[in-house]
């Protein structure tokens, strides 16, 4: 890299321009690829205004989204909060796509733009490209085209079947979105094919349509033999955790376009699922990467002292972890914990102490910190990452402790940062980041298609945690409307199989 010229140097508080942005990008790229060994999708950096940032917020970060009132609501709320100074906007949004789109705000100073590019265009980008969950479950090169298809498809449905019908369907689909995820891989996802498949399904329908079938008389008295329950469940592929998938394939009354819309929402849910599972790692990775890069740029003289101070000021704000009894405390800060873990791993790899050698024999003293980190970023998710890498030293540093709440009596301190507590704390923290454990476990267990067609769902309640009843009733109503017949949800205690609560809903009159 060439020497830093006087006018290219980044100063504190200075405005940015496109030439300088380019220069900064080139320098970051050199550090990221050569020194840190990152592997990224090509970047597309887009400069946007605050209003466009709000737009991006409201459509869950995707640049293209079908229309629905809930996005309008989100926009209205974020706008009100922003306008009254209650909330500031993010410095950037990054989209898991190929090329990787990074939105940066025009208001940022040059130092912030440099930070943001290092953080998003290299940190997050590398994570998206290399983490196994993203590789397995998302199709980065297809997502933008797919969203364009989804937007067009929903708009066409609105024209054909009316906005009200589409809105009702999307309301129901969104209510079940968290239950539209398959947790175990079935096949490789290819979103480009999705659009083609839709066209093919329709063509097939037209091709095989024959009006004569309508005229074939029913044989009188020939009722189909009732299959026994176990066989029936096997045929339906039950139990099924992906409710949207089940409805799309098996709901008796849905029209083809309705199935397609459910599929769109389901694909979206699946696309975002890896992000839910890797919040800590993703932010930790990006924060660690920007910290390394910014320091390197400072060494090279590209950032002057003032710029470095501006960066450190904002960096320390980001990784601030208030104590549990602090007024600012609002849960564990994934930036802080993530960054601390990455630094800790690097330390263990480069100069471990005796304790590390006992706890982490595989990586202690491995030498190349980046190699260890890249390996971790690729092969773990938050839960397994914590279970594997949270060190006693970090537990002591953050003074972590676990508290047990039985819902009635006083809270009990279960473990603190001492020899006896490390494993308990580590395991409890891993559970707290385990999406599977945090989200209710709900499955479709039976559907009596030959009888009254009642759909039966089961919520396996762990630790006695039930569903929020008012919400559950509303979601169940949506589900009944989609299914077309009655629906029953039973909440069962996972350890004793005792039924704790039952909800029922029937389809609303059409």
């Amino acid at each position, binding site marked *: 890299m060439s020497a830093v010229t006087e006018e290219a140097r980044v100063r504190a508080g200075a405005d940015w321009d496109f030439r300088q942005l*380019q220069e900064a990008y080139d320098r970051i790229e050199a550090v990221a690829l050569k020194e840190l060994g990152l592997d990224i999708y090509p970047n597309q*950096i*887009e400069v*946007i205004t605050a209003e466009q940032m*709000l*737009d991006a917020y*409201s*459509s869950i970060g995707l640049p293209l989204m079908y*229309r*629905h*009132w809930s*996005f*309008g609501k989100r*926009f*209205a*709320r974020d*706008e*009100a909060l922003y306008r009254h100074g209650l909330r500031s906007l993010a410095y950037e949004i990054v989209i898991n796509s190929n*090329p990787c789109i990074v*939105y940066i705000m025009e208001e940022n100073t040059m130092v912030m733009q440099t930070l943001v590019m290092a953080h998003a265009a290299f940190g997050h980008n590398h994570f998206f490209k290399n983490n196994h969950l993203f590789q397995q479950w998302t199709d980065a090169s297809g997502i933008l085209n797919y969203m364009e298809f989804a937007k067009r498809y929903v708009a066409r449905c609105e024209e054909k079947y009316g906005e009200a019908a589409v*809105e009702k369907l999307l*309301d129901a689909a969104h209510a079940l*979105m*968290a239950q539209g995820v398959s947790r175990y891989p079935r096949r490789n996802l290819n979103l480009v094919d999705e659009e083609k498949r839709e066209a093919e399904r329709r063509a097939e329908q037209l091709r095989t349509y024959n009006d004569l079938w309508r005229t074939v008389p029913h044989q009188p008295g020939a009722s189909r033999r009732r299959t026994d329950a176990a066989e029936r469940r096997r045929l339906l592929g039950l139990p099924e955790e992906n409710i949207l998938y089940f409805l799309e394939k098996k709901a008796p009354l849905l029209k083809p376009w309705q199935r397609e819309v459910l599929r769109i929402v389901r694909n979206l849910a699946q696309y975002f699922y890896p992000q839910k599972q890797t919040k800590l790692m993703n932010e930790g990775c990006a924060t660690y990467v920007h910290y390394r890069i910014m320091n390197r740029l400072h060494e090279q003289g590209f950032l002057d002292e003032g710029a470095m101070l501006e960066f450190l000021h904002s960096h320390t704000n980001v990784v601030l972890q208030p*104590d*549990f*009894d*602090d007024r600012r405390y609002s849960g*564990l800060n994934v930036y802080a914990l993530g960054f601390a873990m990455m630094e800790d791993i690097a330390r263990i790899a480069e100069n471990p102490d005796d304790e590390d050698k006992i706890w982490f024999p595989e990586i202690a003293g491995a030498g190349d910190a980046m190699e260890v980190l890249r390996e971790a970023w690729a092969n773990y998710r938050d839960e397994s990452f914590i279970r594997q890498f949270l060190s006693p030293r970090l537990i002591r540093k*953050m*003074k*972590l*402790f*676990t*508290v047990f*709440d039985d*819902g009635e*009596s*006083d*809270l009990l*301190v*279960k*473990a*603190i940062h*001492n020899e*006896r507590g490390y494993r308990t*704390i580590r395991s*409890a923290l891993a559970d707290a980041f385990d999406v599977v454990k945090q989200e*209710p476990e*709900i499955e479709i267990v039976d559907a009596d298609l030959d009888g009254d067609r009642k759909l039966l769902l089961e919520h396996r309640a762990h*630790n*006695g*945690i*039930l*569903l*929020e009843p008012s*919400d*559950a009733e*509303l*979601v169940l109503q949506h589900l009944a409307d989609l299914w077309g017949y009655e629906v029953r949800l039973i909440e069962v205690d996972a350890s004793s199989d005792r039924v704790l609560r039952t909800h029922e809903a029937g389809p609303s009159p059409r």
Partner: protein
Amino acid sequence: MNIIDRRLNPRGKSLANRQRFIRRARKEILDAVREASAKNGIADASGERVRIRSDSLREPSFRPSLHTGRRSYVLPGNHDYVEGDTIPRPSGGGGGGSEGSPDGDLQDSFQFVLSQDEFVDLFLEDLELPDMLRKQIRQADGFTPQRAGFSTSGTPANLNLVRTMRNSLSRRIALRRPSSSMLAKIEAEIASLPDDAENGQRRKELVEQLRLETLRSRRIPFIDPLDLRYNRFENVPRPAASAVMFCLMDVSGSMTAHMKDLAKRFYKLLYLFLSRRYRNVDIVFIRHTHVAHEVDEETFFHSTESGGTIVSTAFEEMLRIVNARYPRERWNIYAAQASDGDNMPADNAYAVSLLQQNILPLCQYFAYLEVGAEEGRYGGPTELWRAYQRIAQAGYPIAIRKVNHRSQIYPVFRQLFSRERAVREEQAR
């Protein structure tokens, strides 16, 4: 790597979502707008912040209830707890505060900002105005032609001579069209040459030159269609000029809060209507009992006075203000009077003559709104009503209406619109 500047991309990408959202919570938003317009001033309709509670905006999902079950939390920053300590349960549920419902505000009220257009729209809808009328109120009426550069086509009346001649001159210079003075000079030289053999050659040259130059000047026109430039005008929507709106109201004890609210809605609608048509709209509030005063808006709507009711005092006050501040030549004068119809019987004749002789000739439009209790009141027409009715029948620009409910306010305007339309059509003819 690409850096793309998206800042100039079209705005309002989420407009369609916003419309869907407003439609969804229409009823709740209407209530909020009603409340806001009752609370705020007549003239401020811009960007209303509204707060709504709505079940129709709820986005339910299967989520764990915060009030059941047993949980473990991991917290940072232990000071002096040791294993086995107990911590008193914090009030208000949750354990140690690490659990906050992610979208828990759904149950709570929801606050956002309506744009001015949305607010006016909803306000008008609340008054149950027909769509067409709503559009008319929203549109600025009338256009002023405004200079907007030059064009190559237009009517002869708009020909811009200076531009056209400048183009012609530069074209003539560029193509070297001989000027008439130059031709005259050659002719003069030919004429001045003595007619002998010595000059024969020179003469021949000059004659040839003259022939070519004449040909050239004939081929290259003095003014070519290419040179023509016309003044271009654009029609710019224009609110006419200035208007002043007089709000007259009886504030004696018999006017209830409901009546005042009706009156306020009417004034607000009139204001909206006027502010779309005129660049400046002044509002003058005159309240009266047996005496009349000009007051500010707050006092006008919110304080009551005791005393009898003498309508003519308000007219006198209005005349005084018009003479002092609003010369008729420069201001369009509108007046709206709200009353429950009471007046001192002795004052009726004077008030009517004052209205007929002095006020109505000044006004573009005078509206009298007789406000009644919500459930309606039976009984004969009031004194004031009967008197105004006679004036209206005589063809003066006055609209009179009885109003018990807010949906009845709009018909008062219909008269105003039909009258304006008639005037416009007349002018067009």
